[in-house]
């Protein structure tokens, strides 16, 4: 009867939402729009770190760009009072992610770090997650990408190269998170300290507009920064409960 009792345990345990709010870590990013200059250093950093393919002009023309992090631009006003604002857009790692529920095979789910994880080798390519994602940050491999030799020598061995028919997106550089946790574990199982690791985009941002860290650590910069009075979340009205906080641009 153990099967039944196991079922009953689960029944008691799993019927309320958010039982897994208790993450080990809760990785969070803040982006200060008052600092962002739209230089796109983050974009290239991401391309280099995550083996994001170069699709070529024709594919670009078809609208099949591959950028886990992209810079969106929004103009306000007309000449001579035109103003341009940039906003970096990447997977918001929502805690209530629409994309996760829709995947029929569970290829995308919420891992114990509060990350929205994408399992490439489980993905069957229904692309439903891309439809459900309001931030449109999921990118699909429409074919097998190739690197003109010897460019493939640059590929990061810590990150898989995705084949055709697979959805991919920003992972908050999970390979770096793993590395950091591994180091932390080896060195008497302490927690990963603030600033010990950063995603490629954060690491390279020339204005330090991007801040990354563990929300659970209340001493961390990201915790302070996400509690900055200027903070807001894009499309917050959709209740995606995203893990990326933006700091409002200051008009002066």
């Amino acid at each position, binding site marked *: 009867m153990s099967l039944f009792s196991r079922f009953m345990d689960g029944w008691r345990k799993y019927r309320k939402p958010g039982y897994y709010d208790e993450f080990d870590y809760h990785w969070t990013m803040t982006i200060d729009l008052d600092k962002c200059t739209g230089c796109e250093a983050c974009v290239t950093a991401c391309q280099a770190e995550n083996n994001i393919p170069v699709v070529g002009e024709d594919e670009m023309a078809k609208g099949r760009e591959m950028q886990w992090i992209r810079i969106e631009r929004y103009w306000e006003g007309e000449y001579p009072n035109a103003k341009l604002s940039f906003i970096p857009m990447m997977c918001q790692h929502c805690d209530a992610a629409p994309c996760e529920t829709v995947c029929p095979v*569970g290829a995308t789910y919420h891992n114990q770090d509060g990350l929205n994880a994408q399992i490439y080798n489980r993905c069957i390519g229904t692309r439903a997650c891309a439809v459900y994602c309001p931030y*449109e940050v999921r990118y699909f491999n429409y*074919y097998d990408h190739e690197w003109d030799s010897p460019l493939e020598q640059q590929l990061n061995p810590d990150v898989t190269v995705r084949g055709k028919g697979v959805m991919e997106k920003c992972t908050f550089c999970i390979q770096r998170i793993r590395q950091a946790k591994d180091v932390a574990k080896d060195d008497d199982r302490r927690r990963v300290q603030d600033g010990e690791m950063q995603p490629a985009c954060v690491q390279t941002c020339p204005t330090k507009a991007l801040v990354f860290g563990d929300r659970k650590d209340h001493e961390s910069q990201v915790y302070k920064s996400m509690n900055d009075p200027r903070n807001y979340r894009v499309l917050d009205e959709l209740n995606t409960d995203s893990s990326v906080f933006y700091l409002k641009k200051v008009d002066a």
Partner: protein
Amino acid sequence: MTTETFKLGYNDIHDDVVRSIVKTGPKYYITLATAGSVTLLCFFFPWFYQLYYGIGAAGMNHPGVWGTYLASFIFWIGLSHSGTLLSCVLHLTNSSWRKAMYRSAEAMTLFSLVVAATYVMVHVGRPWFIHWAVPYPNQMELWPNFRSPLLFDVMAIATYITGSTIFIYMGSIPDFAAVRDRTSGWRNTMYTLLSLGWRGTDKEWHRLHWAYTFLAVLIIPLAVSVHSIVSWDFAMSIVPSLHQTIFAPYFVVGAIYSGTAGIVTVMFVLRKTMGFEQYITKLHFDNLGKLLLVLSLIWTYINGVELFTAWYSGTSEEYEALGYKLFGYYAWLYWEMILFCAVAPMLMFSTRFRTSFVPMLILSIAINIGMYTERFLIVATSLSRQYLPDAWGVYVPSLVEISIMVGSFALFTTLFLIFVKIFPSVSMYEVKETMATPKMEPAAPAAGSPA
């Protein structure tokens, strides 16, 4: 009501039906060959190319990640929604006028479902892993995600295909038996097996009646659920103009609508090609016409409601979606849809129109074109205008997609052609039921009411 058929004796029916199966003219083979080769060229070759190259062979992009494949999928599911569903309804309500043709209608259901299922394979990026969407025990202890609308689809469609297959088969058992006695050779063997040794005893009839009734009772809610679920693939998302409560009824109505139109088309073709003039009559077209008319009115109403709610929401997202649908890149398709599915059907207010064959044929085809457009627009317009304007884009189908779409019709035709040579495409015993039962005095056949 049985004005045309009552002149005929039971025998004639047999002769006609058996002839339709056994006697095969060159015309048939030519059509079959054409349909078959078109299927191969337009459906399977492009598909294999796509398997080799990747979904990139189609025109989909970012953000337009869904395209005609999904539209076609919905379309075929929709087309399936009048065969089985309606014959269930009519079986329960005992309305006999449709009995002559419901079998081919059910066949339509079955084959459009098959095509739809194939489209799922065409749509996904890695069809070779499609079985992962099916719940089966495996050593990885991996199970599908039962919260996903797409998985509802898998379950619903699987059930629906099973149900329809069984339903059409059960209905045909007596006729298999009948044909069995008239055929010889491999056909005879086949029908012997298919008829399961049916003898038509009072007991068997009684059981069949009940089994049939229960199936009907089960399949009606199933059919309704299937298309509601298909609609939830969209409605459960938060994409502006897709995230709507009205979607389930909208899809169901649309499905029955296009399905019924499909029936009209098929009826017409059968009538001409298989020589069923006596069985498929003005009466049927008249009734189908009325049904179509009602459906088109409901459909139009729901469309209106959709627009209204979008306007009433007052959010930038919904406004944009609305404006884009009406006047955007795909606007001409939208108005074409309105013309074919909302305006043209008004013609059917006139009985003369309903009871004249060719116009009905044309209209029914027009309606299905319109309904296909509707499905395409649901996918295309909403995906290209979502929350972040800087990520907007436009999706245009590629040659591969169009060819596969054409090919799918050929596939359907092929399957149907094979069907008419195996199944008695008119249900004999039910037609007999609609006829005057012979009286004591064989000399004087009394006009009218069946016992």
